[in-house]
């Protein structure tokens, strides 16, 4: 509970933050602190420098417009969970936010922190993949955007460079006749996802599946896509049978984690169950 010694900076602009990160090579960004500080208190992480972005203006907030939604990196889980505009456009993300940890965690933890941390059991990554979100990162060389499909690299590793700050998440605009849902099986201890699935489904004029996009978190070292299920759904009539048949393939080829909470086999099974449930809800919302 007593971290090792560190230096602390509180820049007020993104550029200052980036400059500090560039100068101090082992520095860590501090956002809500709900992943970073516990590891520091256990001395599992001992960063010599913290760059607290909490005082940087303009990093928090949600904008929902015709062209899509943008969510500032510093926006807390609680703010996202409570956003009516977001819920209308994209209920999967408000659902995911509302299911994170407990009230204290939701009040302090931020979406930028969660995505940058890339915990294998975090909720948002499934949503980001399913919705095709883009991350905006600012580094010494300026800003760039990274698609969710390329953002989560491996266990707790993202495409962000050490001196980059994630500033914003962008969700594509809402398509007519589409719906999305996030379904989670929480770990009874931590509340993190033993497995979590986000499904986004677009229907064609005949009510068949025009496009499906499904993200999986919790089950593997990094969030991933259920490509076989997506392919199996495309062009199909969506009923209990076709959904079940497609969902049954959701864990195919996944290298699932095994720990004291769930074996790889059980996680793979959960993925199929949750995928079916997420698709059903998404379809209901698309109609």
């Amino acid at each position, binding site marked *: 509970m*007593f971290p090792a010694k560190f230096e602390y900076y509180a820049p007020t602009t993104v550029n200052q933050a980036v400059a500090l990160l560039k100068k101090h090579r082992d520095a860590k960004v501090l956002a809500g602190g709900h992943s970073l500080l516990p590891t520091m208190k256990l001395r599992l992480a001992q960063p010599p420098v913290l760059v607290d972005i909490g005082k940087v203006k303009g990093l928090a907030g949600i904008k929902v417009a015709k062209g899509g939604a943008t969510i500032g990196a510093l926006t807390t889980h609680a703010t996202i969970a409570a956003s009516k505009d977001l819920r209308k456009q994209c209920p999967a993300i408000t659902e995911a936010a509302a299911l994170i940890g*407990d009230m204290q965690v939701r009040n302090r933890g931020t979406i930028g922190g969660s995505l940058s941390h890339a915990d294998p059991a975090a909720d948002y990554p499934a949503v980001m993949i399913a919705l095709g979100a883009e991350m905006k990162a600012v580094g010494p060389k300026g800003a760039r955007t990274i698609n969710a499909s390329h953002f989560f690299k491996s266990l707790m590793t993202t495409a962000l460079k050490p001196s980059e700050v994630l500033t914003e998440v962008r969700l594509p605009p809402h398509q007519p006749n589409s719906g999305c849902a996030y379904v989670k099986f929480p770990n009874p201890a*931590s509340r*993190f996802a033993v497995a979590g699935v986000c499904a986004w489904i677009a229907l064609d004029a005949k009510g068949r599946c025009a496009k499906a996009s499904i993200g999986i978190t919790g089950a593997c070292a990094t969030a991933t896509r259920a490509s076989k299920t997506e392919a199996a759904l495309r062009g199909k009539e969506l009923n209990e049978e076709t959904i079940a048949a497609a969902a049954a393939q959701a864990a195919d080829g996944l290298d699932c984690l095994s720990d004291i*909470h769930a074996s790889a086999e059980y996680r793979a099974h959960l993925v199929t169950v949750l995928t079916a449930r997420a698709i059903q809800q998404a379809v209901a919302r698309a109609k």
Partner: protein
Amino acid sequence: MATQIIGSTVKRREDPRLITGAGKYTDNIVLPRMTFMAILRSPHAHARIKKIDASRAQKHPGVLAVYTGEDLKKGGVNPIPVGFVLPDMKTAQHHPLAIDEVHYVGDGMAAVVATDRYTAKDALDLIDVEYETLPVVVDGEKATHAGAPQLHPEAPDNVAYYWKVGAGDADKALTEADGVIKQRIINQRLIPTAMEPRVAIADYQPATGDLTLYTTTQNPHLIRLLMALVLGQPEHKLRVVSQDVGGGFGSKIYLYADEVIACFAAKQLARPVKWTEERTENYKATIHGRDHITDAEVGYKKDGTITALKVKTWANQGAYLSNFAPLIPTFFYGPMLQGVYQISNFFVEVWGTYTNTTPVDAYRGAGRPEAAYLIERAVDWVAFELKMDPAEVRRKNMIPPFTSAPYQTSMVYAYDSGNYPATLEKALKNAGYADLRKKQAELRKQGKYMGIGISTYVEITGAAPAQVAASIGAGVALVESALVRVHPTGKVVVYTGSHAHGQGHETTFAQIVADQLGLSVDDVEIVHGDTERTPWGAGTYGSRSQPVGGAAVYVATQRVIEKGKKFATHMLEAAEADVVFEGGKYFVKGTPSKAITFQEVALEAYTAKKVPADVESGLEAISFFNPSNFTFPNGAHIAVVMVDPDTGKVDLTRYICVDDVGKVINPMIVEGQIHGGIVQGLAQALWEGAVYDDDGQLLSGSMMDYALPIASNLPSFETSRTETPSPVNPLGAKGAGEAGTIGSTPAVANAVMDALKPFGVRHIDMPLTSEKVWRAMQKK
């Protein structure tokens, strides 16, 4: 005549300070020149310490001292003793800091004292240790197998003790039974997780030789006694203070190494030394609970009569015997396997074993949850095999009501009072049992799995008749005392040897006094938790505070009333035999209109205006209460669950209970104790479990991995009571602190197994995690 404050819901007087953050916890104490201690703990479960070099740590700026096991030994610190001794027990030396070998992950090896917490912690990394790792055993049964790693030379095959108890002829009864069920059943290891971890501050005054220890204990007097023995500090020069404590559940009964080291360091340095346990440290260094592996054989007749129970239990005691560890799987377990049933043939064998794990001792329920879980599961096994309703099997075997004389069980104890059938029937009625069974059948047809679980438990509280306790191995008399002191204005201070850390004694003990003396609760102050202010008390655990500590308060109050009569007699100018005390007033029998108040009498006790010289002034009395028997709370708990066949997830949908805790002083406080108890017990059934890997690393080492119960996962509880007063204390009270925990584990486990009946599942072990339940459902 009493004023009926006993039995009424008085709001807890301690709550305003506790819920507004104004409680005084040990960690809040700041003393001048205070230093901070951190403990270097073994990262290995079993290793030889080849070299330990603290020189770099010693030189670190801010570090005042580093101590190792050898330093403590040279300083005259003794090993930590065991306070409950069984015949032929093999007690391993437990040095406060390990010497030569470490025996579990978390075993203390060195202590750093520094000017602040961070420095102390930093310096731990500067202690250089060379280990030679040794083979590890974490399983309480495997520890006894040939070729298992050996922990202590004193204890061959890692057996700390072998103990047995029995009645009748179990083997014969098993041969003659219509059916015999053999089942291995595991009562998994739990981590107590009190909200506040342990804290110790030792303050030594070289000028006077006085040592004060502020600590988070449930029993300051016991700690003083044990500390005096270990440290060689004379008992009269040692004061132990325990202020507000954030929960104990048994884990804060014992003398731990850390408190000893803090005291030693404070004496060495002549500066106050503070040690505050971190949560991850708490999970390793504070005792764990339960951890039984049992092979059971149950004999039964076709009509559901249970004829025999034969049990072999390996009780994992961890790396060392904690203070009271040997009591729990023996006297608090074996004889309690009879439960509420008329079974006459038993054979119970227990091996208390050493393993490379955190020591195990009493944790809420302590022995009785293990016993109740086993016998209540066994009853359901019989119901399963005979396709009988589990309520029916219970009715068939239940001890009939006994309210006027105690019931001599088959093994050791005589139950004080109880009406088990009435309690069961009330619970079944409150649950709407018949309708639940109908609903269950309907749901099954729809592929939905509802389970209904019953447990009818009895447990043992109110330790103890001192002579009985001494005869079975207790190192101290488990009596409780109360000093009731009346001030000249009639205000009362009660000094109790019991300690409250969530139980609400400041309210209930005051209710007893106020009720008897005709005062308001606000006229009575309760002082506890300081050996210098309060007379001896063995402490608060085993649900003993009301039946023993409360009884002492009651008896001392009666003595005050009697003493008061002496003053009243002269003030009323009457014969003592004619003076009565009712409703807070003394008067001559038949003339209540000429009464004098308790306050007037109190004033007379200190002014002596009316009394002659041969009536001694002052108004106070003390009682050391020694109960004539234990008390045996009991109840019937019913859990209703839904099991998701797709995932195996269990949802508790209803919880109905009826408990008999004897006479109740404060219904709201009893309710609170029952609620908390139920949650702690059902969490064992569904979620909690300490997990070690084969190397002895604690995998469930933090709350991220050890699943504690959360309010949002629980329904409202439907609680109710029956009341058979206990004849063994004047209050008629039994204990209420552990009852809920003991009743709920089997109720919930039985409910889950009931839901799994269509899948042909008789038993799976706790915690009944989604995965385990899902796997059980795949077997059909």
